């Protein structure tokens, strides 16, 4: 089914070809059938907000297609991006399980397909399907790992340069790029969004990129970033 946002919507989890590759979705048949009966397949355009930090939890959102920005906000409006969620992730989990307010704001950065499940239905589903319960525990563990990583990066890095270098190394470690002499990565975020990921200003990020290019550590080719000097970037990540 084609949605208004150009997405090829997969209506049924039972026929989804991506299922086996995704941590939460690869459920035994009985659990999958049960999940299928409680989920609502929905499509969102870019820029849609699924839930807002502080809102009472309505349910969970399984991201099927697209990417979602997860952020927290200070009372003065300062925003910190915690993570860019990718397909297969379940969003709003800990809030839905505990009944506490959503801790993050989730906003789509691409057109997205999301499967929504109401909180009461999801809790009943977990009680009935221990396999799903295990997968939820794994997802929560992964999210906890990310949160600890974020605390470490924000709280213990000396400078914005160190944090930016760490972020670029982390991104380049995906898809085996870090093994290459000159790893490449697609810059999917704006300087403003990168600034929000490392807790600094847009101006600082732009200045740091210019400096890294001038020192031949980085090179840009359109939206592709090439790490030309891995050793120098690594050194920056550890010493600032």
């Amino acid at each position, binding site marked *: 089914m084609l949605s208004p946002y150009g997405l090829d919507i997969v209506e049924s989890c039972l026929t989804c070809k991506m299922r086996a590759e995704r941590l939460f979705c690869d459920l035994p048949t009985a659990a999958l059938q049960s999940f299928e009966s409680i989920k609502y397949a929905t499509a969102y355009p870019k820029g849609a907000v699924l839930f807002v930090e502080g809102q009472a939890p309505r349910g969970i959102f399984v991201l099927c297609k697209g990417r979602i920005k997860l952020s927290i906000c200070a009372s003065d409006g300062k925003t910190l991006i915690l993570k860019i969620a990718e397909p297969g992730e379940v969003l709003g989990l800990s809030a839905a399980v*505990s009944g506490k307010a959503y801790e993050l704001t989730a906003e789509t950065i691409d057109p997205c397909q999301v499967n929504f499940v109401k909180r009461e239905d999801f809790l009943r589903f977990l009680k009935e399907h221990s396999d799903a319960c295990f997968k939820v525990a794994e997802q929560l563990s992964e999210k906890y*790992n990310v949160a600890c990583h974020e605390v470490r990066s924000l709280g213990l890095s000396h400078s914005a340069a160190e944090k930016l270098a760490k972020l670029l190394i982390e991104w380049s470690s995906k898809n085996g790029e870090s093994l290459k002499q000159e790893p490449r990565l697609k810059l999917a975020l704006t300087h403003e969004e990168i600034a929000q990921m490392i807790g600094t200003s847009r101006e600082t990020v732009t200045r740091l990129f210019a400096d890294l290019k001038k020192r031949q550590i980085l090179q840009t080719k359109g939206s592709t970033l090439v790490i030309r000097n891995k050793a120098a970037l690594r050194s920056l990540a550890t010493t600032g």
Partner: protein
Amino acid sequence: MSQSCLDCAQRSDRVFCDLEPSALQEFDGIKSFQTYPRGTVLFREGQTAHSVFLVCEGRVRLSVCSESGRRLTLRTASAGEVLGLSAALSGGRYEVTAEVVDAVRAAEIGRKELLQFLRGHREVCMQVVNLLSEDLHVAYDRVRAVGLTRARHSPSQSAPAR
């Protein structure tokens, strides 16, 4: 304090410990009970997660460390909490360092035994999910505190690692 979970008077007040009799009996058989003096490191950030620790009495400091040795306290865990749970479940490395603040009595459960126990007792799996959700809420609060108030507060919690 009793060395057996079966005789523990605090059990009903603690999220993880309030188990059904059959689960409790089995859990009692897989845990090893020990007292740890102040300063003991139960596990260190980056180590492969081999077991979890259920704190029965005392307090444990959970912290993260930078490459240069600076340390930041995440929080202090107290009785009833299960430490190392997310790392043990994911089969990864401990995300934090757990260091005994006061003398601690804790039950240690090997990762393999824990996973086997959870597979046999689905109701406990839900308790584990609840505990992990709580841990995550606290971690997000810490991200907010560290990441969004840093301009006003330098990391005073940081101290060189011992």
